[in-house]
C-alpha cells in the first residue's frame, strides 16, 4: 500500500482498561491525532484525548432554552399588543402571567432541539463514510471490541508508522492493521 492510500493504523485491545492504558501511552509519547473506539463509554479516554475545557452542549442547551422562553414571550406580546390588540373591559394587553405556560413549554422544546442538533455537529456525526469502516474487524467496536486509531497525518508518524506500530504492540494490542484511506 502506498503512503497516500494509508489513513492510519488501527489496533484492537482486550478490554476497556487496556484501551485506556494504550491511549495514555500514545498521548505520553506525543501522538495527537488519535481516536479511540469502544462499545460503551469508557471513563477517562475522552478526557485523555481532549481535556474537558468547557461543555459546549450545555451552553447550547442554555441558549436554546433562553431563545425558546423569550421568543415565545415576544411572539405573544407582539400578537396581543401590536398585531391584534383587543380591549376587553380595560384589561391589560400584555398580560404576561398568562403567557408564561406557553413560554415554559417552548423553553423545554428549544433547549432539546439545540442540544440534539448541537450534539450531532459536535460529535462529527452525519458522516456516513469513515476510513475506520474499512477495517473488517472494526464492526466489533459496536459489540465488544476496543480500538485505537492513529492517523497518518500525525507529526509523530513521519517515519511511516514503524514507531507507532511498535508502540501499539508494546501497549499489548491484540492486533495492529493498516487502515485504507
Amino acid at each position, binding site marked *: 500500500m502506498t503512503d497516500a492510500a494509508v489513513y492510519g493504523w488501527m489496533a484492537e485491545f482486550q478490554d476497556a482498561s487496556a484501551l485506556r492504558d494504550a491511549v495514555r501511552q500514545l498521548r505520553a509519547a506525543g501522538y495527537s491525532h488519535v481516536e479511540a473506539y469502544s462499545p460503551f463509554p469508557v471513563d477517562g479516554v475522552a478526557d485523555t484525548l481532549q481535556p474537558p475545557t468547557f461543555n459546549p452542549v450545555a451552553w447550547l442547551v442554555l441558549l436554546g432554552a433562553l431563545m425558546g422562553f423569550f421568543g415565545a414571550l415576544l411572539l405573544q406580546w407582539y400578537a396581543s399588543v401590536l398585531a391584534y390588540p383587543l380591549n376587553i373591559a380595560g384589561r391589560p394587553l400584555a398580560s404576561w402571567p398568562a403567557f408564561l405556560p406557553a413560554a415554559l413549554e417552548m423553553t423545554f422544546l428549544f433547549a432539546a432541539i439545540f442540544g440534539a442538533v448541537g450534539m450531532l455537529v459536535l460529535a462529527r*456525526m452525519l458522516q456516513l463514510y469513515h476510513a475506520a469502516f474499512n477495517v473488517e474487524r472494526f464492526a466489533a467496536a459496536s459489540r*465488544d471490541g476496543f480500538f485505537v486509531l492513529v492517523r497518518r497525518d500525525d507529526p509523530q508518524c513521519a517515519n511511516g508508522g514503524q514507531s507507532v506500530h511498535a508502540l501499539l504492540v508494546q501497549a499489548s494490542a491484540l492486533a495492529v492493521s493498516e487502515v485504507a484511506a
Partner: protein
Amino acid sequence: MPAGTLLLPLPRLTPMLAAHATPAGITDAVCDIVLQPAARRWWWMALGVALALTGLLAASIFWLLYRGVGIWGLNIPVAWSFAIANYVWWIAIGMGGTFISGALYLTGSDWRAAINRYAEAMTLFAVCVSGLFPILHLGRPWFFYWLFPYPDTMNVWPQWRSSLFWDFTAILAYLLFSAMYWYCGLIPDLATLRDRARSRRRQVFYGLLALGWRGEARQWRQLQRLMLLLAALAVPLVFSVHSMVALDFSEAILPGWHSTLFPPFFVAGALHSGFAMVLLLSLCLRAGFGLHDMITARHVDNMARLLLATSLVMAYCYAAEIFTAFYGGDAGEIATTQARFTGAYAWVYWSTWVCNIAAVQVLWWPRMRRSVPVLLAVAVLILVGMWLERFMLIVTGLYQGVVPSSWGMFYPTFWDLATLAGSVGLFMLLFLLFVRWLPMLSMHELRRLAAKRARHAAGEEAG
C-alpha cells in the same frame, strides 16, 4: 406454561443483570430479535389483532369526518367525554415512560439500563395516539392547524390566555422532545445493527438511521453530556406537561374541576398509569422474547414497589379532593362530590378507588410482587381504573351543573367505544413494529453495566 414462569425468583437473590451476561452476549441476544427473528406465532397473532383494531379506528375516523362529532354520545351538558378522557389517559401513560427513564438516569440507577428504551418508545407512541383525540374532537379537524400561531390572512391569532392553547404547546413540545430523547439514545444501538446486519438493504437502512455513529470516545462524551441534560429537562417537562393538561380543567369555573389540586393530582395519576403500562410491557416482552437475563425479577419488583408508592399518592389526592370540597363549603363543590358518591356515575367513582388504590395494596406482600398473574392483573386494573378516573372527572363535572336546567346524562355510542378500542390497536401496532425493527433494549447501557459488574467481580476476587 411451566409453573416456574408464573412465579419469579426471589428479587434479593437476583442480580440486576444475569451473572453470565457479557457485552457480546447481550448484543447478540438483542440484535437477533431484530436481525434473525424466530417465527413467533404470538407476534403475528398480536399484529393481526392490532391491525384489525387500527382498521376500526380508521373507519371511526372516516365516519367522524363524514358525519361530524354527533356520531359520539357527547352533547350539552356533557360536551367532553370519551375523546378527552382518551386523550388524557394516553398522554398520561406516556408520562410514566419519560419519568422512569429521566429520573433513573439522574439518580444513576442500574436498573434503568434494561427498561428505558421500551419505556421511551411507549411514551412516544402513547403521545402520538393521544394527540389524535383533541384534533378529532375539534368539530372541523381539518382546520386543526389554526391552533398554531402563524401570520394568516385573517389576521387572527390563537387565544394566548386559554389553557387550550397552553395545552397545545405542551403536547407539541412533549411529542418532539420525547422523539429526540428516544432517538438520541438509540443512535449507538442503530450503529450496532448496521455493523451486524448481513443484507445490503438492512446495512443501508440502519446505516442511514445511525447517522454515522462510530463509537469514538469524543462521540460518547458528547452523547453522554446531551443525555444527562435531556434527562434533567425530561423530569420537569413531565410535571409541566401534565399540569397543562390539568389546567384544561381547573381553568374552567366548574364544580369538581376548578381546583388548585388538579395539576399535582394529574401528575400523580399520570405516573401511576405510566408505571402500570411499563410493568405490563416488561412482563410481556420478558416472556415473549425470553429476556429473563436482562429484565429480571429485581426490575419487576422495583416497578411493583413504584406502583405501590404512586397508589398511596393517589389515595392522598382522592382524599384531599373530598376534604377540600367539604372544607371549602362551596355548595356546588359539595353537591358534585356527593353526586360522585351516590349519583348516576357512582359506580365509576367507586371503581376508581378499587382499581387504582385498593387492588394495588396486594403488592405489600413480597410474594405477590413475584407472581406474574397478580402483577398482570394489577397493571391492567390500574390502566382501566385510570381511564375510568378521567371519564369520571369529566362527566361528573359536567352532568349536574349548578342549575338543574343544565342536567343531563352521557351515554356512549358504538363509535365512542370503537374509537377507544381502535386507539389501543394503534398503540399496539406501533409497539409491535418497534420491537420487530428496532432494538427494544438499550444495548450500549447494558454492555456498560455488564462490564462494570465484571470489573467489580474481578476486584472482589483480587481483593
